[in-house]
């Protein structure tokens, strides 16, 4: 895992001091809210329904036990004993006082963490594959490239007042577990054959996003040699900073620029800027990537049993559902579900965080991940230790065996916390997961990704749900639109709306109905999404409105 050196630490400390000064000037009246807002946002501090909300960055979703313990301490000391893990691999605290914010940032800095650029019209926290460094199918570990980008994008002098927020994801396998093509820039690290066994480079996708006009990012460059990685990113950003729309905030994301110019023309401009920047020389020295990569060397895996004792059916089910193939065959990655049936997706108490931190220390080389599905992950668990890990998780209410099932719902905070919301998201997630758990249908239905957003901003990825639910305001009453057929994975697609919306009870019944249609129509081995793609929208519409 990456460790700060004195320079990194000094940068974060400087930011804490700068923010302390800004908060002081706000409280003394030297800054108006209009002036202070962009500054607090650049430090992840929002004003939400009930209080200030602090979003803490978890760069590419990786953290260690000491860091998770600090997140637990912060939840207890400054908040109300819990935090909310988000689809961008961050954590949010909902009950923060402005007066405490600088102290919290100082506490975070003690464990090499920060809230820098988790909001505002700047380059946000870089996200990545949660199985990075562990997955059997990755070309390389994508995190060194993400860390290189983190440093490049932190306090970037030119790109702090972009037209709009800018989100980057970096992956390194054919499988996409980071919704890469739904980001402003998506990067896939690839290898191409050469004489010395493979040259590493980066594929660039640009102009993806969700929100009110969801778009899938087109490929703009098939291979950027890795020694020009940052230069190419800089060129992409500069073209966007200069020509992205600033007249209308709903058209300001890069996806609109790429769409309006056309991918070919945007690419042409990027290539021109790239050629220019190559002559200027903005790339970090080559040794820097090697230095960073050394931090991500494999831990010392040891051989061991490759199978588990399946005599306990609850354990066996959890192993089948919640573990993922590891590059070392005596290990697996173990998903810790934050989706107990009837629970709030992504919420974890301080106590739960401490349990997970302890398990990471004991069983996973002190490493943890936050998944974009709002779950936690122990990346490197020996198969021999799996039963012990499961027992401890079970005792803490963290062993729901439901990864990628209909209980594994992504839900944004919605109207329970968010000032932009039209409708609540969390109660729907609670009721749907409870219902499917009770009727035992979760297992029957298998993989089904349900995603809920409380408004058109799409923080809950509803456009990319096999089933998506969007909260809308119907004359002051909560109403929900259902959509089908989205995917955030390598088979990326955008969901289509089924028809008129439903009230809360109605949309829950509708979810059951569409799963009925699937169960009645599915061919051998088909997931919900496959069946939908084969039979189309009509049969579902018929069942819902017919």
């Amino acid at each position, binding site marked *: 895992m990456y460790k700060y050196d004195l320079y990194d630490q000094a940068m974060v400390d400087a930011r804490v001091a700068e923010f302390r000064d800004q908060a002081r000037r*706000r*409280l003394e*009246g030297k800054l108006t*809210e209009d002036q202070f807002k962009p500054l607090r946002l650049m430090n992840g501090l929002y*004003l939400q*329904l*009930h*209080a*200030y909300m602090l979003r803490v960055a978890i760069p590419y979703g990786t953290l260690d036990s000491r860091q998770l313990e600090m997140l637990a301490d912060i939840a207890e000391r400054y908040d*109300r004993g819990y935090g909310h893990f988000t689809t961008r691999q961050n954590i949010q605290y*909902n*009950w*923060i*006082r*402005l*007066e405490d914010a600088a102290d919290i940032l100082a506490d975070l800095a003690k464990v090499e963490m920060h809230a820098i650029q988790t909001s505002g019209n700047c380059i946000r926290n870089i996200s990545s594959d949660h199985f990075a460094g562990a997955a059997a199918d990755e070309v390389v570990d994508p995190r060194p490239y993400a860390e290189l980008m983190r440093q490049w994008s932190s306090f970037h002098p030119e790109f702090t007042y972009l037209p709009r927020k800018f989100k980057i994801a970096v992956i390194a396998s054919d499988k996409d577990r980071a919704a890469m093509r739904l980001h402003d820039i998506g990067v896939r690290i690839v290898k191409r054959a050469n004489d010395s066994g493979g040259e590493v480079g980066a594929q660039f996708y640009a102009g993806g996003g969700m929100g009110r006009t969801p778009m899938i990012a087109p490929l703009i460059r098939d291979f950027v040699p890795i020694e020009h990685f940052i230069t190419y990113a800089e060129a992409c950003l500069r073209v966007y900073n200069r020509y992205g729309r600033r007249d209308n905030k709903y058209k300001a994301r890069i996806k609109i620029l790429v769409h309006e110019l056309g991918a070919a023309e945007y690419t042409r401009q990027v290539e021109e800027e790239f050629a220019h920047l190559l002559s200027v020389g903005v790339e970090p020295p080559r040794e820097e990537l090697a230095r960073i990569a050394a931090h991500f060397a494999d831990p010392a895996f040891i051989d061991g049993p490759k199978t588990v004792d399946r005599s306990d059916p609850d354990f066996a089910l959890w192993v089948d559902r919640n573990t993922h193939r590891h590059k070392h065959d005596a290990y697996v990655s173990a998903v810790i579900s934050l989706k107990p049936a009837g629970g*709030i997706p992504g919420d974890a108490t301080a106590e739960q965080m401490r349990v997970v931190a302890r398990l990471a220390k004991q069983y996973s080389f002190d490493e943890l991940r936050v998944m974009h599905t709002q779950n936690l992950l122990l990346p490197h668990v020996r198969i021999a230790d799996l039963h012990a890990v499961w027992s401890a998780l079970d005792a803490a209410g963290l062993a729901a065996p439901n990864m990628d099932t209909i209980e594994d719902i992504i839900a944004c905070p919605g*109207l*329970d*916390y968010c*000032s932009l*919301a039209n409708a*609540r998201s*969390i*109660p729907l997630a*609670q009721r749907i997961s409870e219902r499917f758990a009770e009727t035992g249908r979760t297992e029957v239905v298998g993989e089904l990704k349900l995603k809920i957003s409380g408004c058109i901003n799409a923080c809950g990825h509803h456009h990319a749900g096999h089933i998506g639910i969007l909260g809308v305001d119907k004359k*002051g*009453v*909560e109403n929900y639109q259902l959509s089908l057929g989205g995917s955030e994975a390598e088979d990326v697609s955008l969901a289509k709306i089924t028809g008129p919306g439903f009230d809360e009870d109605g949309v829950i019944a509708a979810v059951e109905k569409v799963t009925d249609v699937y169960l009645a129509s599915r061919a051998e081995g088909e997931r919900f999404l496959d069946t939908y793609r084969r039979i189309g929208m009509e049969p579902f519409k018929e069942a819902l409105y017919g």
Partner: protein
Amino acid sequence: MKILTGNDLRSGAVVWWNGSGWSLFVDDAVDVGEDAAEILAREEAARRVNVPYAIEASIDADGHVRPAHIKDRVRALGPTVRRDLAVPTADKTGWDWVI
């Protein structure tokens, strides 16, 4: 009636204008009639409240103040999914009218 709400600058807590200051309890909110804009400007300039705004509300038979919009009703009580964290209020029927 028209009432005023915002968030406390320092703590971020949801607050309601009670005629002379800002209260944590929606039931303390008073009708400001035509004076909304003037009070808002003065209070924000004095940094006693952050991004305050005026909303429509009514008073029920038991004297409880009920904001018209669902968003402000959620603000008045707290997240509906964490009732253990609700703003302490005398209004025991509060959750019945939030949604």
